[in-house]
């Protein structure tokens, strides 16, 4: 009983002292660190290509968290496998574990880039975005152009990655009309949103 009473007084003392010691965390960081943002952009460590992201997903990179910042309707329409939908207005209220690699994407990359800056302002430094967004995913992963002058190993690698996600690679330079048509299709895919 005496021990319980002591524990109770100990808890009470710690609790009552709490309002007088400031914030709960010294490490909590909010606000834009412009130097580190400029450095990340300069080094290119702010983004990742759609193909690289595909390799990370295929290789089950530990701690990978792919976030689609578009609206739920667009997300349900088409999304990158393993992605979760977190519209841009919900980002600030979300939590990100420090051991995660956050990959942001949107329709064409602009919103993902803005979301990346938002996360930096929230102190999340382990995030990157896909510059061309879902449109790049479609072009580089789902229907990639196999380079006509590339080595067989390189072509096989691209084709294998595309097949993994159910895509169908295009042969570069083989049928010009087809390639032009595909390019037009790709342009058509980049028609909306950011």
């Amino acid at each position, binding site marked *: 009983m005496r021990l319980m009473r002591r524990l109770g007084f100990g*808890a009470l003392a710690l*609790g*009552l002292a*709490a*309002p007088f010691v400031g914030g*709960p965390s010294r*490490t*909590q960081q909010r606000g834009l660190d412009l130097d580190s943002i400029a450095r990340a952009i300069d080094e290119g460590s702010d983004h990742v290509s759609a193909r690289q992201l595909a390799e990370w997903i295929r290789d089950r990179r530990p701690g990978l968290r792919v976030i689609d910042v578009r609206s739920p309707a667009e997300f349900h329409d088409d999304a990158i496998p393993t992605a979760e939908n977190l519209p841009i207005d919900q980002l600030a209220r979300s939590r*990100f574990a420090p051991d995660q690699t956050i990959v942001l994407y949107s329709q064409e990359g602009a919103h993902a880039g803005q979301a990346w800056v938002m996360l930096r302002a929230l102190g999340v430094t382990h995030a990157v975005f896909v510059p061309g967004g879902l449109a790049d995913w479609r072009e580089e992963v789902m229907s990639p152009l196999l380079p006509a002058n590339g080595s067989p190993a390189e072509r096989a690698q691209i084709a294998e990655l595309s097949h993994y996600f159910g895509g169908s690679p295009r042969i570069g330079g083989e049928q010009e009309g087809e390639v032009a048509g595909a390019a037009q299709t790709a342009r058509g895919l980049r028609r909306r949103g950011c």
Partner: protein
Amino acid sequence: MNDLLIAGGIGMAFGCALECAGLGDPPKLAGQFYLRDFTVLKVMLSAMLTAMLGVFWGGRLGMLDPSTFYVPETYLLPQLVGGLVFGLGFVLSGLCPGTSCVALASGRIEGAATMLGLFAGVLLVGLAFPAIESFYRSTPHGPLTLQHLTGLPYGVVVALVTVVAVSMLAWIAKREAAR
């Protein structure tokens, strides 16, 4: 793998603590609902106090960063309904998910029955999910905390919760001593 081992260790310690507190015993748990036995409340209040003060002071002393902790999102209406279903199951079986594992581990058949019901419920909800998904995601409020709800500084919330919890524990101790 290391994380899994740590999680397993913490889980075992949690189970042992529950068993030591007597929470593997269904009549003891059901007694809380009839205000006959306050063990559940005592365990919950002391666990909340320890965790809250540990997180606050651990963060203040730079041992951990509370801003990286996951706070589950609030979906008011579905969680109210879920809470009612959970409470009904709790008072009927005298066990909750954690304590049913403890009861089973200590050889009580009620633990097995509750766990069976638990898995059946999970399966049913999983099968019915397409039909209930819109309700499941209704009335979203994001990750709500007392701090955000009241607009009070974190330290003040910690102090208020401590005062309330310690007062309740003192009242329970007095009530038990009087018996």
